[in-house]
């Protein structure tokens, strides 16, 4: 089987995120990294390959993003992808969720994978939606928040937690599965894998290469405009205690509780 894993480069968790007032989009300057949730997706692919229940011939990492986003692909390859594909084209800048999902679906079509894996959310976009959008464009069944799955023949049996408890769902391949962050513990790449990552094939494609219609992507092809950013009413900042001397810390906690008649 062939697996495509969707990965995205996002601002590093340690970077203070802000909106660029001139564009109304996220300011993407500063340190960036592979979206942490995508590591769960790569790990799931690698475990499938190592597990041997089904033969996995290839794991392809796919991203849509600016030139620099190839770093996310290098990371993905160091974590176990065999090669990668990057759609980098000015025409896709400013794409909304549906436009992004459409473009990604076009990239996936070129690869004809049996399984598409992705993370539960992007750390910056947080739409939780790309998986379902991609599935819709491809005509593949899509499941999100999958915390466990098994492949048997051309069927995937997946478990996930929904509103009322755990659901078990079966889908026929090819399918799109977005994994929850509870599905596995992503490994650290070995030094050798990090060194070797840049030597693995990385294909850069334009919208023309992927047969993406220009009027369906980018800011112009998007159906949504975000703006009028306002600050929500702030909850008064809580008191903070750095625990240096635990006996003193708990004494302060007890006094705090006592003051509020909580004890």
């Amino acid at each position, binding site marked *: 089987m062939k697996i495509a894993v969707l990965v995205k480069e996002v601002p590093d968790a340690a970077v203070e995120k802000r909106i660029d007032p001139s564009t109304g989009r996220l300011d993407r300057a500063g340190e960036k990294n592979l979206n942490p949730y995508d590591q769960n997706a790569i790990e799931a692919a690698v475990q499938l390959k190592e597990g041997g229940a089904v033969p996995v011939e290839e794991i392809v990492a796919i991203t849509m993003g600016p030139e620099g986003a190839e770093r996310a692909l290098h990371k993905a390859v160091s974590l176990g992808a065999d090669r990668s594909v990057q759609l980098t084209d000015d025409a896709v800048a400013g794409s909304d969720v549906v436009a992004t999902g459409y473009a990604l679906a076009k990239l996936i079509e070129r690869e004809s994978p049996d399984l598409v894996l992705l993370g539960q959310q992007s750390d910056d976009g947080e739409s939780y939606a790309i998986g379902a959008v991609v599935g819709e464009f491809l005509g593949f069944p899509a499941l999100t928040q999958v915390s466990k799955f098994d492949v048997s023949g051309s069927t995937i049996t997946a478990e996930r937690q929904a509103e009322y408890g755990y659901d078990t769902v*079966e889908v026929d391949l090819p399918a799109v599965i977005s994994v929850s962050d509870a599905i596995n513990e992503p490994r650290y790449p070995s030094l050798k894998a990090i060194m070797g990552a840049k030597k693995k094939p990385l294909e850069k494609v334009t919208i023309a290469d992927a047969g993406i219609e220009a009027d369906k992507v980018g800011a112009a092809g998007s159906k949504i405009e975000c703006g009028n950013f*306002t600050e929500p009413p702030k909850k008064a900042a809580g008191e903070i205690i750095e625990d240096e001397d635990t006996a003193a*810390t708990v004494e302060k906690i007890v006094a705090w509780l006592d003051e509020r008649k909580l004890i």
Partner: protein
Amino acid sequence: MGGILVYALTNEGAINKNSLGAVSAAAKAAGELGTEAHAVVVGNVGDDVAGSLGSYGATKVFRAKDASEGLAAPAVDALAKLFADNDYDYAVFGGGLLGFEIGAGLAARVGAGITAEVTGLKVDGGKLVGQRPILGDSLISESNYKGKGVLIGRTNAFEATQSGSAVAVEDITVETSEQASKVRLVTRGEQRGADVNIEDANVLIAGGRGLGAAENFQLAEDLASAFGDGAAVGATRAVVDAGWFPYAGQIGQTGKTVAPKLYVAAGISGAIQHKVGMQGSENIIAINKDSNAPIFEFSDLGIVGDVQKVLPALTEAVKAKKGS
């Protein structure tokens, strides 16, 4: 002009509370837009239950009886058909996992803009605008739709309010898409682990991945015992999925909503999906070794420290105080 269609999630013949909230919010917005809010249920939902959506402001209720409840793809087929037949401008969802999946699939199929985690609906210039907190809830962003819009609510964001009376239910027949023919629900709503009660607790000690191991939940249990009657232990999805704690004790978007007098978050990062289930607590104490953890942004007392050290010491101190 096209109105608003609301998806109402049901389980075992009851409508989800967040869906009722979504119907109420959509009905109010529809009033301001000068249009109507309709609702749709999927599966074999009783006439009374489906029709009761009228009491929350839906002026029409549709039912796709033959479609499987609890799956996204058949619901996308149903909503897409209703969009095609009635030319709605907007779809509104109460949230939840299925809301996200159905909303995303629908947006792709009908070419709509989509906003997740919506906390407010606003009407501006004859159009519906979705308000959504972004960047760790530090800003509210407004989504304006160039054409159709799909708005997926955040858990507990919309309050259910009654504003009408029950309506008749109209059954619809839906053609199954290729995607929907390839997905089957094997079991739904399985409860895992013991049946713990957290909703009635005055004091909740909630444990997260920071506890490090299943057996360390004992540290939370010990602190709860020290508080005595009315104290219970809860957990995050991360540790429930890991099998450290029963699902019945999970707090958050796909778990319970709680509002105790005192909430102690031990080794919990404070993800949005957890926050929505506990932010109504009267007093929140967080213990986390990472001073940048989001939980500190909405706690009243934050302890930057190791739960392994702080919890046992706190248990002893609470016991001593109680004994004195």
